């Protein structure tokens, strides 16, 4: 949680964004993030982000579920309180497959979603700084972090030359905090909509 200085460039077409990302990186600037309204394929590679390991976490949660189910059921039915169900063996593995499977899926799904929220720092009542309100509508917003040496005017011109339709410099919080969105400015004019 610290205030930093950012230069923001907004693009209205992903076809323009891609070469711009490449050029900005070659020029040696550090891209803080690109905010897009939908997942743009290949953008993570273009920005040099590494692959996510979320699916590995999912696998680990899944086998945790499998182990929990198998060890729990076998402990209950063979050791803690072995009951005779119609003369069938106490250790009735085939009959446990359904519950084992369900718990595998349940653990993997719940674990992954919680991990996802943790990694992305997302939860109800969490607030983050908005560089542009249209980033969730139709703009691709590239945010570049400034260092002491960055000449913001140069950088802004550089972004404009590479197709950014709107550029600005902002000092903003880069983390999250608990807050409300209704304190923000309202981006669109009040309008009346008829059904």
């Amino acid at each position, binding site marked *: 949680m610290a205030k930093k200085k950012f230069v923001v460039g907004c693009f209205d077409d992903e076809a323009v964004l891609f070469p711009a990302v490449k050029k900005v990186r070659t020029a040696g600037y550090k891209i803080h993030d690109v905010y*897009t309204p939908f997942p743009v*394929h290949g953008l*993570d590679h273009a920005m040099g982000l590494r692959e996510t390991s979320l699916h590995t976490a999912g696998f680990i949660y899944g086998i945790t579920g499998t182990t929990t189910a198998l060890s729990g059921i076998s402990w209950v039915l063979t050791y803690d309180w072995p009951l005779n169900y119609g003369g069938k063996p106490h250790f009735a593995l085939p009959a446990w497959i359904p*519950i084992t499977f369900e718990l595998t899926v349940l653990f993997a799904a719940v674990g992954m979603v919680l991990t996802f929220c943790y990694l992305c720092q997302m939860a*109800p009542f969490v607030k983050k700084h908005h560089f542009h*309100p249209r980033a969730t509508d*139709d703009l691709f917003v590239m945010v570049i972090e400034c260092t002491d040496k960055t000449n913001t005017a140069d950088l802004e011109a550089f972004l404009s030359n590479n197709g950014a339709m709107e550029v600005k410099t902002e000092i903003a919080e880069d983390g999250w905090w608990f807050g409300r969105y209704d304190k923000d400015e309202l981006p669109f*004019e009040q309008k009346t909509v008829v059904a």
Partner: protein
Amino acid sequence: MHLKYESQLREPLVYGSKTYHDVTEDIVRPIEAKPSKLWYIGFYIAIALLLFGVYSLYRDVTYGIGQWNLNKTIGWGWDITNFVWWVGIGHAGTLISAILLLFRQGWRTGVNRAAEAMTIFAVMCAGQFPIWHMGRVWMAFFVLPYANTRGPVWVNFNSPLLWDVFAISTYFTVSLLFWYSGLLPDMATIRDRAFTKLRKRLYGIASFGWNGSTKHWQRHESLALVLAGLSTPLVLSVHTIVSFDFATSVIPGWHTTIFPPYFVAGAVFSGFAMVQSLMVIVRKVFGMEDYITMGHIEAMNKVIVLTGSIVGVAYLTELFMGWYSQNKYEGYTFWYSRANLFSPYGWSYWGMMACNVLSPQIFWFRKMRRNLFVTFFMSVIVNIGMWFERFVIIVTSLYRDYLPSSWAVYYSPTIWEIGFYLGTFGLFFTCFFLFAKYFPVIAIAEIKYVLKTSGESFKDDMDKQELMKAEEFAHEYAH
């Protein structure tokens, strides 16, 4: 690798020449507008049904399930019929969002959000039936395996009824997570364009602070893919396990090895029919014809004719086995209690055959698949037929068991049994009306994602590339 564009032979998934902003506008409009009179009328009818259901359940709890016409012989009647019916309907959403995602079926984007919501509401309705059927509903928590002071005496992990507890609750949880994680970006879209303080605040809470970061999108896509991979076997397992409730018993008519695939096909069949009923109305009322196109409707009708025919094959296989097994009890159930039109419940068997097997065959004709009226009419017919199917399986197998002295007299439900069923309709539609008003009925981000590969105007722009020579194309686009 991402395709540059889709073949011209495929119908566009989004009609009209739209920008990303137009997509947002079109889908968010019903949320920002005041609901129409029609919405209020529908909503109040749903609430009225719900209240009637609550009153029926009040009687059920106060006087016991003797309020229903169940007896010792027919211990499962409308109640469990309705349970299986709702669970079946609850299969289409996850099938559309998970299996079709893995199969890379682009058309799922138009209908997945509403279908997933429908799934969640249908499973909520389904869950009511086994719970209230317990009679002493305040002891419902006994089905959970928790360390108790009674020994501890545990639940029977070998019982299909307990498998059901795990299957339905897991299915509900995973569907809810899948649906809501997909909704987060769209909630953020609504939040950022909201022009009232209240809306901004509430959607701000609901969107978990989503901001569209590339890293978040990368994780989001990974999450969606893995959840789809998990949900695919899950959705097949749920109705398989529901069918085990019957198939692991020794009741003629239930003791059948083909039950799991037959139940799953039936579930997809009825689920798609319910999606059709809702989508035909939603696209009309909200003017979403550009997003839920005739192509979408046709694709779903194809699934309906396929799964309806699978179910038909299963019915015929059962009849064949009833004769071929040379088992008197099987033969009696299938050939007397069911297929004989003049036996007490013969009408339900032939109702099922007419609705599920014969009538969907009209969808072999393209003209019929693309006719909205026929589609809507058939979707209702299919769900009536699938209700009959569960009624046939449950009641015709039970009412004449091995001991003729315990054969039941004709079973018909009481008003409170029907009231409970109507109440779940109330619950379902109350939830769906609220969903349609406060949530985006179409996945906004996913439509934007396919817009430039499958949108009509963008596909037309590709005509000149189609005409290019291979060398020219390579010169222009190869990197």
